[in-house]
């Protein structure tokens, strides 16, 4: 692990008009880490992720990526620096085929050979996706769409992958498959910030985690620590 964290939030605030959804949070991601952000509905998890990706403006605080402030950087330029978001609810291009969707992920890249190589890599990681390359993406099942969305983000060759509730609306078996994919992505050295409602699964998978409540981070620790924490168990694991 290098000295400067890959991503650092310092007292970050995000507001929708007069309503502050994220009320000053601080967190850190080191290179290669898999960190999750868990919490109930409306805690501000998605808002935080969108602020990091640049699709929402910040209202205050600092957002450091590789040690540099990126608060003012527009979303499309953040992607070019290796910061990719898989939006909530998949957000795939429903009228394009699976292959077209994946290739759109490489929209900002110029190295054709690299793109082809990455495409192959994604295929080995997501065999289900490879079977359906010529299918229109809107006709895929929810789980397959999620895989396409992750694959598309990977084609931008990200250093930091922001995943927004990849388990949303999926059957438990499918969720497990998605998490296997996430694990293999992490194994390739991609740093991942995962937002999840499925706290149990997220904590099991992550090295570290933050718990968010009404716009603030209330707890932080390793996945195992938080899993054992009685407060977390009571609030999120139904015990």
């Amino acid at each position, binding site marked *: 692990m290098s000295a400067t964290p890959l991503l650092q939030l310092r007292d970050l605030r995000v507001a929708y008009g007069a309503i502050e959804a994220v009320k000053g949070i601080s967190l850190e991601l080191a290179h290669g880490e898999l960190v999750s952000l868990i919490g109930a509905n409306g805690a501000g998890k998605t808002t935080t992720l969108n602020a990091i990706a640049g699709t929402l403006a910040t209202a205050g605080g600092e957002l450091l990526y590789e040690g540099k402030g990126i608060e003012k950087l*527009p*979303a*499309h330029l953040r992607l070019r620096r290796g910061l990719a978001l898989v*939006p909530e609810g998949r957000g795939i*291009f429903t009228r394009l085929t699976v292959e077209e969707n994946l290739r759109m992920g*490489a929209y900002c890249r110029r190295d*054709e050979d690299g793109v082809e190589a990455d495409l192959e890599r994604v295929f080995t990681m997501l065999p289900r996706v490879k079977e359906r390359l010529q299918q229109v993406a809107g006709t895929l099942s929810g789980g397959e769409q999620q895989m396409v969305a992750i694959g598309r983000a990977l084609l931008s060759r990200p250093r930091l992958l922001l995943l927004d509730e990849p388990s949303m609306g999926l059957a438990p078996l499918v969720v497990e498959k998605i998490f296997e994919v996430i694990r293999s992505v992490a194994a390739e050295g991609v740093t991942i910030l995962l937002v999840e409602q499925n706290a149990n699964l997220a904590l099991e998978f992550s090295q570290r985690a933050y718990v968010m409540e009404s716009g603030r981070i209330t707890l932080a620790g390793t996945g195992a620590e938080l899993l054992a924490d009685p407060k977390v168990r009571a609030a999120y694991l139904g015990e």
Partner: protein
Amino acid sequence: MNELALAIPWLGKRNPAAARWVLVLLAVGAPLIAMLFGKSWVRILDFAMLYVMLAIGLNLVVGFAGLLDLGYIAFYAVGAYTFAFLASPHFELHLPFWLVLPLGAVFAALAGIILGLPTLRLRGDYLAIVTLGFGEIVRIFMNNLNHPINITNGPQGINMIDPLVLFGWDISKPLKVGDEITINSLFLYYYVFLACVVLSVVFVQRLQVSRVGRAWAAIRDDELAAKAIGINTRNMKLLAFSLGATFGGVAGGLFAAFQGFVSPESFSLMESIAVLTMIVFGGMGNLAGVIVGALALTALPEVLRHVAVPVQQAVFGHVLLDPEVLRMLLLSLAMIFMMLLRPAGLIPAYSRYSRPELVVGKEAGR
């Protein structure tokens, strides 16, 4: 061009090469065929070409980028009035056409950006309302800017606009070939407009398969996801508005020169709706579709006008329904049946052969 040929029933799929030739012959020979029915039909054909240009331009915005624009005719107005201001006795200016037409296009593009900037965050219905308002604002300005200083000459409009003069050759005058043959200016205008249409088609086809075209397709499907894959959605949307407007501006300039007269009533909301209807009717997002849609919906009311009266007289002995009433009725019926039977238009986009921006395989990379 290819898509249009392929869309010709029966022949298109069996013999594409022959279909292409049929298409070329049709495009070149159209005014001659129209002449058989009378000179007014050649005039209608000229207008049809202008509508084709408008439909191509609006299709960029609505069909490619997915931004519903109900005030598109405003750009047509900007182009037409620019031409009228700079090439008519109104301001005593008679600038040459090759300067005025591009200026009209530039002003229309600027108007497109002016409309685009405040509406960047709007989508769907909300965007439609604002663009509708924009179209009306432009028309009302044209209508009322004759006071306190007379700029637009108000509802009377501006007349005696200079005709098109290409390299010193006034195409509003009949062309004499030898002593015997004269070519009516309506024909000359047709070929000038046809050339513009062909250029537009080539340009838009190239655009559709470019990075810009793919960015628009992405924004149309999911704007957040488009942002997430690194598309500068703000600039791409502004580009869609301004490029679409450019087509409107050029068509407007040609319209002013052709007609020799512009007035605000040519640029009503109904005209915006008419162009949108052409796109929806023909097949939104598909170049061949919108061309066919524009041609069909320009011709339909005219055919009706010529057919409805004699038919009614023959059947009932007198005219029961005014053709103008029938026109709206039949147009609405046509739209309803279209939406029921072919909701994606006459020649739908997204069928394999008509989705050039989504080419699969190696070519998709660049």
